[in-house]
């Protein structure tokens, strides 16, 4: 079977999926200025349609193969071998679904958030969605870079215009961090494409062609390119010690921005590592295992540690993301099926749970106008429904069996344990930490005595807000109880990924000792 859009769908599904949001945004801009109900409805319908399309494509998607599907390919800049090439495998299909899902949630959740320049707010969210989906669907390096950079712009405005008090600082920091990382990646892209063109005689930016053709890359080239790509993605993930933009961006961003940022943007970094760091330079990736694992474990433990002492709920969730994303990178770089599948599933679950946590913190903030934990207390009394949902998401993040967080955490730990026990022990420490900071936060905000009499007058979350939380809660439960349908998407591409690095893993038997000796040095 040919995995082109024509064979599978009969229409350009990925192009439609990618640009549908921005088309909706254009319609809103051109025809609906000043008509609040019309453009809000259009924004919601557009994001729902995108989500529905992604579901439809996921149903058509063939999970038996790691081949990219729904491929579209036509020439863009001929003289340079740059094509408009799109396609998805199981990993990107899931991430595209996550993106379109969380976009709906973010739009619905911020229905009345923007008091100022509301139309521009919804347009930015839709433009952001296009950029994010484009990152996951590009199969051409140039196209990927275009989407990778372009999604910075709407996010920059979302944080800078509708954010909190220090929004300008946070927006600039966010932009500069990512931009600095990605321009170095640009040089690496140019370098590997150049090497490939002298080696193979054709200039191409096609990701699959490059993956096959970079085998003979001289090792110093591979190492430097790996580092350049890795820094760009590590900033996005974010990995310790490049994480410092994240707490600022999260705290200052509006709720929708935080949901998208934590839910999708961070995953772009891990996705980039899968596609490029491992796909292009499998040999260097194997060499990098101990370093990545050490950094991941530091992120896990440090993130948890710092979370415990955060006085601000949003900042706490932000730092917890640093900790959780450490699991993602750790699982990815142990290169066994449990680790890799668990890691990608972790990305999905983290998107759902952290997105939900930010959403809920946003709901509380809209009512109380404070995010400080000490201002809360006893919130379960005036807002029982909210507290119930909140507990579900907190438990999910802690890793309670039966909820989605558990499955992925378990898989990652298993993978890491199979690779090297010491790292698993440290990662488990982080797990304990996450139970501590999340449950303690929950206890201090929802239970205990009512600190402020004013809170008694607060209204519980309304139907619209519940409507945004139900799908999140449902998917958390569903994946927690029956993850097989999701894992099915991951199996073929994960095996494919491991097959890429396997020859080098076998070559480097002593890597285990290297890892231990590296750790022994501390």
């Amino acid at each position, binding site marked *: 079977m040919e995995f082109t859009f024509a064979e599978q769908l009969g229409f350009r599904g990925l192009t439609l999926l990618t640009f549908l949001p921005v088309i909706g945004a254009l319609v809103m801009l051109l025809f609906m200025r000043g008509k609040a109900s019309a453009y809000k409805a259009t924004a919601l319908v557009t994001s729902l349609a995108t989500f529905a399309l992604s579901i439809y494509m996921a149903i058509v998607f063939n999970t038996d193969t790691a081949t990219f599907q729904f491929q579209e390919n036509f020439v863009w800049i001929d003289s340079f071998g740059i094509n408009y090439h799109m396609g998805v495998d199981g990993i990107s299909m899931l991430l595209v679904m996550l993106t379109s899902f969380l976009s709906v949630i973010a739009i619905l959740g911020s229905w009345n958030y923007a008091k100022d320049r509301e139309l521009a707010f919804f347009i930015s969210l839709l433009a952001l969605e296009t950029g994010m989906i484009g990152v996951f669907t590009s199969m051409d390096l140039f196209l990927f870079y275009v989407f990778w950079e*372009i999604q910075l712009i709407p996010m920059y405005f979302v944080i800078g215009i509708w954010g909190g008090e220090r929004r300008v600082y946070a927006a600039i920091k966010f932009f*500069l961090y990512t931009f600095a990382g990605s*321009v170095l990646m640009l*040089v690496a892209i140019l370098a590997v494409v150049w090497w490939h063109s002298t080696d193979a005689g054709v200039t191409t930016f096609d990701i699959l062609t490059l993956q096959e053709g970079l085998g003979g890359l001289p090792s110093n080239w591979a190492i430097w390119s790996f580092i350049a790509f890795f820094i760009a993605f590590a900033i996005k993930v974010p990995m310790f010690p490049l994480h410092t933009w994240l707490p600022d961006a999260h705290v200052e961003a509006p709720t929708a921005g935080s949901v998208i940022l934590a839910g999708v943007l961070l995953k772009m970094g891990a996705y980039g590592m899968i596609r490029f760091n491992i796909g292009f330079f499998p040999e260097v990736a194997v060499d990098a295992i101990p370093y990545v694992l050490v950094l991941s474990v530091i992120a896990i433990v440090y993130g948890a540690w710092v979370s415990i002492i955060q006085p601000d709920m949003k900042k706490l969730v932000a730092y917890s993301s640093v900790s959780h994303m450490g699991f993602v990178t750790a699982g990815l770089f142990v290169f066994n099926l449990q680790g890799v599948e668990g890691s990608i599933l972790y990305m999905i679950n983290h998107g759902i749970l952290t997105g939900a946590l930010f959403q809920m913190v946003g709901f509380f903030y809209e009512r109380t106008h404070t995010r400080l934990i000490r201002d809360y207390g006893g919130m379960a009394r005036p807002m029982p429904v909210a507290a119930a949902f909140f507990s579900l998401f907190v438990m999910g993040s802690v890793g309670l069996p039966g909820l989605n967080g558990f499955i992925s955490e378990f898989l990652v730990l298993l993978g890491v344990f199979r690779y090297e026990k010491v790292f698993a022990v440290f990662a488990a420490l982080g797990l304990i930490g996450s139970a501590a900071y999340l449950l303690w936060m929950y206890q201090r905000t929802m239970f205990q005595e009512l600190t402020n009499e004013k809170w008694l007058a607060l209204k519980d979350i309304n139907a619209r807000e519940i409507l945004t939380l139900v799908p999140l809660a449902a998917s958390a439960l569903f994946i927690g109880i029956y993850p097989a349908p999701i894992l099915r998407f991951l199996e073929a591409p994960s095996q494919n990924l491991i097959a890429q690095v396997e020859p080098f893993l076998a070559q480097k038997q002593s890597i285990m000792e290297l890892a231990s000796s590296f750790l022994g040095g501390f």
Partner: protein
Amino acid sequence: MPTPDVTPIIPELILMVAACLVLVVEPFLKLDKTAVVAVALTGLLAYGAAAFALLGQDMAGFNDMIVINDYAIFFKVLFAAAGVMTVLMSPRYLEAHDRHLGEYYALLLFAILGMSILAAARDLMLFYVGLELMAISSYLLAGFFRYRLRSNEAALKYFLTGVFASAITLYGISMVYGFAGATNYAEVGAALAGDENTLGIAFATALVFAGMGFKVSVAPFHMWTPDVYEGAPTPIAGFFSVGPKAAGFAAILMMFLAVFEASVDTWTVIFIAFSIFTMLVGNLFALVQRNLKRMLAYSSIAHVGYLLAGMGAIGQSGDLLAGEAILLYLAAYTFMNMGAFGVLAYLKTQQPVTFDYTLDDMSGLARRSPWAAILMSLFMFSLTGIPGTAGFIGKFYLFNAVVRADLVWLAAIAVIFSAVSAYYYLRVMVYMFFRESEEEFVVGESISGPLAASLGLAAAGVLFIGLVPARLVDASATAFQNFLGL
């Protein structure tokens, strides 16, 4: 004596006639200068169209002093576009300053004539004529607001440093003539090819580099740039930042590849070293500017630094790619920088008293005039090099050429500087979108038709090159290959 074939200079003849016509028409007009503007515009469009019609021609005229080929035509069309944008944004701006005079357009056309000759000359003498025609017209334009202190300062500074630079260039040229005994590029190149890398030739190379470095504002010869941009009328500042720069690079490319081929090793090192220093100076000083015209001046210096890296790549690899990339970059740069200055010119006509080109004056612009803010953002993003805009395509090709010349480290330095540059470009948006204006701005006139057309043209250029670059890429490739075929 046979009649010379004038085909190679048809576009220049058209431009010259138009410039003279402006001077003839002007005395018959009273306050309404529309006719002058129309003549200047028609002249520029005819000039561009004539150049375009000659595409594919490859011939030399007047004892091989001047040529018409795709390379020269590429620049002619570019100059025509820059000229049209400048003319369109001028009338309302000059009226706002009570100085709407016909000479302005005549001088502009003469400057473009000089630039056009500069790009087409194949003889050192004619090169110098073009250079001076461009320069002298520019001095006058810089001081066009003669009753204003800043404008006077700009003109004087530009004149003194410019004359100095011309003299240095001339000194270098005279040495070349002394060594080669010829002024024609090809003949000089052939004559010098024999004695490679003698000290004298290296000295001549350095002199011409320094002289041209003044013209295109290479650091440390850049001192005049911010003051001149600040003092000159805004449309003219925009024009200075793109036109003479493109013409300067057109000449630099030819001079160094054809005339100084023998000393390629010397000038490669010179270009790379000055590239790094120029990027450093341009970007660091731009960071601390609060006046937007000065910020754009330093940003233009930074962009010259990137272009010099491209020159270094040519010298290093002898690859055509870097030359093509420089052409492409100049085209991209023309549209985005003209656009940025155009928005400033618009804001000045809108608030002649309150707007003083500072960052604070941009506060809350998104609320006052959203379209101006959106366009300005587009140009700033393009200058930063965000994909989807011309600036990205320019940087992409240029840095690609630098990487392929085995200068990966230079490309890495260049991209780090462009990450630095993101800060000062983004800051403009911080003021426009994230801050509110503290004082009440009196919103004056709405945008005039020509100015809107000019901004539209710039924005369309930025987006077109950014999204569908293939055509321009091919055009710059054929243009540059054609040039080397000489």
